[in-house]
């Protein structure tokens, strides 16, 4: 039974492990995954907690239904972020989360720092500390392979860091498989700071199910409905690159550090169809029927012999158009390099784009950068990736991420488009006001995954939107009306799906017909016997999001930090289908206040006492 899965408190300094069960009350209130991770992190989170100190806990948390038949099987990795200096949290697919649950654990809380490089081996309720000295300096893929070889078990699943995490690059990621990443907020650097190279898991315990017969029947019927949606069918054929085409056509793509928002017809070079010659099949994360991930192989040219998985839309944008780079093969290769070094492709692209705009504007020259940082300069991009991962030359400065502002000199900060010290991504949000608001309020800094209401692009009838969101919402992408509500709804919903282990793509994201709270409640009941009503699930989402908010409040952040890069307010989109779009401050403020009101936060974005009491977060007051 997933409810019997444990929390392991692992101290690397003492090489000690303490295992505890998860109280049912905690499951009911925080569910699992991101929710319980936040509960655990909040116990020690403070303004003075140094993200790279032994005291910062690195928390792995499988979703409540991860490893079972559901709508995904994902895991969240959470800590205070060395990239932003605030809340860190990243969600990862692949098989690792399900394997951890099969091995008897839902959550791992890793604290301390090992004296020598170490990796953890977790097998059926047992946790072992193992020497990782021979693994140091290896990339993420090679690390996984060596661990399997050492243990003589090809079924072992490993989450590891690459060279970037070892070298404490602030935006280093944690990887499992060829490309699954807990990419954002620098969780790989936290792992590196602990001298923890990898976590290897193998589980054969089995998961008992409360009502197997009805559970299987219900799952199959819901899966059938899901597979009939146009969205999942398109996703299974083209993967996330299909979104690239959409954002380019609509004009919400990041081009040359958001100086432009479309590349027009040149976009054909990077669209989903352009990937087809390289694609050799589609792959799934554990327990997913959608298979949205490309398997590729490059058989000729400069990158002949390269093969792997991906690339995703976020990486196509971040290492492609954002850098003025329209060479698809180069992007595929660069993404793979990031995956192997353990670098978040989104942040890496964003910091390089920042440097390129500084180069364009004369803040930087080749003497400082070592390479010519012209837009689209492929060789320079690769060189920088090597240098960032190894903290060499100019890469050493960029490896500090947004903390490099001081080193890059006065005025440089204006060209890093960041929110809460965390860079914006592969998109530009001046056209879609809901997307913009979601970036501003996101609890982990600029992030589309905290709320992005992709339904907004579909122009659904407003009565449908009203039914979903419980209040009036405009169906115009560039309208501000009701978007505070729309974002609020997804902020809670995504907190719930991340806590159950579900994937954005299999729940309400781009299809109104995808599973939602009602289906979640039924699956939880049939799988675990736990009765959680739709209302209780929504309240859990509120609780999780508001607790995250309270950690930001402890940092002294509030309304003034829920904002957007200056460019969004001051520079209308210069050309293309979104030409003239800009964020109006007054209308933005109204969206923000609507969002706060629905959360039960005051006008300054601080949760009200009554809200904290209602959510059982009184001690946060």
């Amino acid at each position, binding site marked *: 039974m997933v409810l019997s899965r444990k929390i392991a408190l692992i101290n690397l300094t003492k090489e000690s492990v303490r295992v505890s069960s998860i109280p049912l009350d905690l499951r009911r209130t925080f569910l699992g995954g991101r929710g319980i991770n936040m509960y655990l992190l909040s116990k020690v989170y403070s303004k003075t907690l140094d993200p790279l100190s032994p005291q910062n806990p690195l928390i792995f948390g499988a979703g409540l239904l991860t*490893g079972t*038949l559901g709508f995904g099987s994902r895991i969240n990795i959470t800590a205070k972020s060395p990239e932003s200096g605030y809340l860190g949290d990243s969600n990862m697919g692949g098989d690792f989360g399900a394997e951890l649950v099969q091995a008897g654990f839902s959550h791992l809380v890793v604290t301390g720092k090992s004296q020598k490089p170490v990796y953890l081996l977790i097998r059926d309720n047992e946790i072992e500390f193992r020497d990782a000295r021979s693994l140091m300096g290896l990339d993420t893929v090679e690390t996984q392979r060596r661990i399997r070889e050492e243990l003589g078990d090809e079924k072992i699943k490993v989450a590891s860091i690459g060279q970037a995490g070892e070298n404490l690059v602030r935006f280093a990621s944690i990887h499992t498989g060829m490309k699954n990443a807990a990419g954002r907020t620098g969780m790989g650097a936290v792992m590196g700071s602990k001298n923890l190279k990898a976590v290897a898991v193998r589980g054969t315990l089995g998961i008992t199910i409360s009502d197997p017969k009805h559970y*299987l029947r219900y799952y199959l019927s819901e899966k059938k409905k899901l597979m009939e949606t146009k969205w999942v069918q398109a996703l299974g054929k083209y993967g996330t690159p299909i979104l690239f085409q959409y954002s380019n056509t609509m004009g919400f793509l990041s081009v040359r550090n958001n100086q432009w928002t479309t590349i027009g017809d040149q976009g054909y070079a990077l669209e989903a169809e352009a990937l087809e010659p390289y694609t050799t099949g589609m792959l799934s994360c*554990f327990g997913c029927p959608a298979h949205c991930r490309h398997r590729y192989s490059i058989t000729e040219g400069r990158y002949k012999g390269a093969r792997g998985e991906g690339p995703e839309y976020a990486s196509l944008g971040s290492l492609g158009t954002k850098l003025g780079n329209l060479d698809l093969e180069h992007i595929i290769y660069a993404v793979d390099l990031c995956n192997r070094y353990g670098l978040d492709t989104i942040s890496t692209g964003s910091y390089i784009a920042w440097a390129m705009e500084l180069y364009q504007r004369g803040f930087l020259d080749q003497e400082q950068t070592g390479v010519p940082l012209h837009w689209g300069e492929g060789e320079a991009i690769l060189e920088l990736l090597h240098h960032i991962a190894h903290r060499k030359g100019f890469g050493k400065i960029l490896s500090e991420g947004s903390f490099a502002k001081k080193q890059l000199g006065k005025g440089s900060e204006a060209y890093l488009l960041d929110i809460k010290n965390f860079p914006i991504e592969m998109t530009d949000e001046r056209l879609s006001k809901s997307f913009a608001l979601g970036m501003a309020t996101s609890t982990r800094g600029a992030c589309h995954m905290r709320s992005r209401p992709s339904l907004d692009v579909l122009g659904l009838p407003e009565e449908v939107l009203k039914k979903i969101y419980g209040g009036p919402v405009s169906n115009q992408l560039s309208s501000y009306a009701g978007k505070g509500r729309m974002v609020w709804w997804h902020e809670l919903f995504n907190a719930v799906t991340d806590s159950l282990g579900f994937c954005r793509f299999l729940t309400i994201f781009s299809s109104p017909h995808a599973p939602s709270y009602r289906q979640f409640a039924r699956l939880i009941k049939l799988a675990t016997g736990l009765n959680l009503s739709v209302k209780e699930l929504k309240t859990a989402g509120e609780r999780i999001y508001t607790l995250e908010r309270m950690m930001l409040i402890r940092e002294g952040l509030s309304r003034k930090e829920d904002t957007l890069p200056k460019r969004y307010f001051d520079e209308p989109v210069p050309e293309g289908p979104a030409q003239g779009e800009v964020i109006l401050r007054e209308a933005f403020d109204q969206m923000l206040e609507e969002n706060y009101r629905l959360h039960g936060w005051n006008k300054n974005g601080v949760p009200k006492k009554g809200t904290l009491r209602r959510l059982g977060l009184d001690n946060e007051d």
Partner: protein
Amino acid sequence: MRIKVDANKCSGCHLCEMVCSLSHLGIIHPERSAIRIQKDDLQTSLNTPWLCKQCKIMKCLDGEKDVPARERKKFIWSTQRAERCPFNGLNVFGEQAYHCDLCLGNPQCVKVCTSGALTLST
């Protein structure tokens, strides 16, 4: 009837293993499923499903007196039979082997497979 496998199409989702163990044993336990996915997830990213081919001449029963038609309908087999199978068609976990009984005519793994890797052949 048998289940045809197209390894190139297998997405590696493991849903087949999950529903196999769930429908037979009431537990999600990929190790105790009659189908298993061998993953080469760090190199070629190819996934290979392995399961009983429903051979007409059952080498797996060599030396046994059991009635083949009856054995075909059983899910839990002995590990000796797995050793005799020339096609690596049985999954072994602990002291038992798991044999595809075709869910007695309605294979759940085929039902759950969305990539087209598993199809029914009569």
